[in-house]
């Protein structure tokens, strides 16, 4: 590895500041609008939305049916819609079938229910490898699946977005919808983890 930075390289942070300044001084962007836009994705649009969808599906069989029939409409019932959520398909993980999602061409992700993607989802290693050796990749991420579990990888190459409905863990039969929500992680909604009982 080289120990010196190439002299031509300008840090992305400084280039971003330069771009914002160039556009702001010409009135092409409004920093206050940017602030609100960023805050929305930092606070409102995140995996808690997806956890609420799953907790409802686990506790309301009619909702679960609607969710698997028409994910977009059932998710909208809870008020979640917006960019990168035009058509969301929900697939159910079971003891014998395990779905895991990826976008090999960029990092497409169902923003209304999961927010912006985490770093590992955008990492070249995940994008490149999960479509070629998913069992190994999942194992590296801490999820060892039994040999008889069929893995289905979902590569999001169009505007269709995938959401995994994970298995409800044993030992949670007496928990309410509200009590289930904090157990449901983003990783389980992408399919690289299972939901654990408390």
């Amino acid at each position: 590895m080289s120990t010196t930075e190439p002299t031509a390289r300008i840090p992305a942070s400084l280039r971003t500041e330069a771009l914002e300044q160039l556009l702001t001084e010409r009135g092409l962007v409004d920093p206050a609008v940017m602030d609100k836009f960023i805050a929305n994705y930092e606070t409102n649009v995140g995996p808690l939305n997806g956890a609420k969808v799953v907790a409802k599906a686990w506790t309301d069989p009619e909702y679960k049916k609607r969710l698997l029939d028409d994910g977009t409409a059932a998710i909208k019932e809870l008020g979640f819609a917006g960019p990168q959520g035009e058509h969301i398909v929900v697939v159910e993980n079971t003891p014998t079938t395990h779905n895991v999602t990826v976008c090999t061409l960029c990092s497409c992700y169902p923003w209304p229910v999961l927010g912006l993607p985490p770093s590992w989802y955008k990492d070249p290693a995940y994008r490149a490898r999960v479509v070629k050796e998913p069992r190994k990749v999942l194992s590296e991420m801490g999820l060892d699946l039994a040999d008889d579990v069929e893995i289905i990888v979902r590569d999001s190459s169009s505007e269709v977005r995938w959401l995994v409905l994970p298995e409800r863990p044993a030992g949670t039969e007496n928990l309410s919808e509200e009590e289930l929500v904090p157990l449901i992680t983003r990783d389980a909604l992408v399919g690289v983890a299972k939901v654990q009982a408390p």
Partner: protein
Amino acid sequence: MDGIADMGGTDGWGAVAAPTRDEPVFAETWEGRAFALTLLTMGRVSGQNLDAFRHALERLDRTAYLDDGYYGRWLNAAELMLTDSAILAPGAIDARARKLRGEDVEEPPVPEPNKPDYAPTAAGSLRTVEDAPRFAVGDMVRAKDVSPAGHTRLPRYVRGHTGVVEVIQPAALLPDTHAHFQGENAQHVYSVRFDSHELWGADAESFQLTIELFESYLEPVE
């Protein structure tokens, strides 16, 4: 294109990063600014669209795509769209950045804007297609073995391979032409299921894979 963005099945990336539970949405402040600048200028300022953004990403060289991570590539793609539409002159961002760090730099003049002659026919990407779908659920189809010079959402790793139509998804505008402002050309979209051994050979792990493919990416298998 067969660029750096088409990563499916490529080797040499090392181990997958382990997920952490409470990762911040933006690891650094500039990432949020780059995210907002990209999305707030893509249509309204550059006069471009989401597919043109993805095409800008796939046109980046390896350094521009990888070295500053995900939002670094967003920033670089936003710059490409802004310079393509002549909102910014080439080199304008670097010149301003150098000025910001105290260098004596002459900035390029603001060019005459030259946005693409383009307007969407509706919001979003979903469209109605009057013609019936060419393929039915259960049909065997082959992804065309082509190597388009422009934008495409047909990744290399499925080209030439045979799968089965699993679901007919809502029709959508075709990224291949939409990214180049050459029309929406809405098509049927299919989730096609491939067996891992068809894609990666007899020694591959056993699994199934689905991917959404536009009708013109597919040919029938007799």
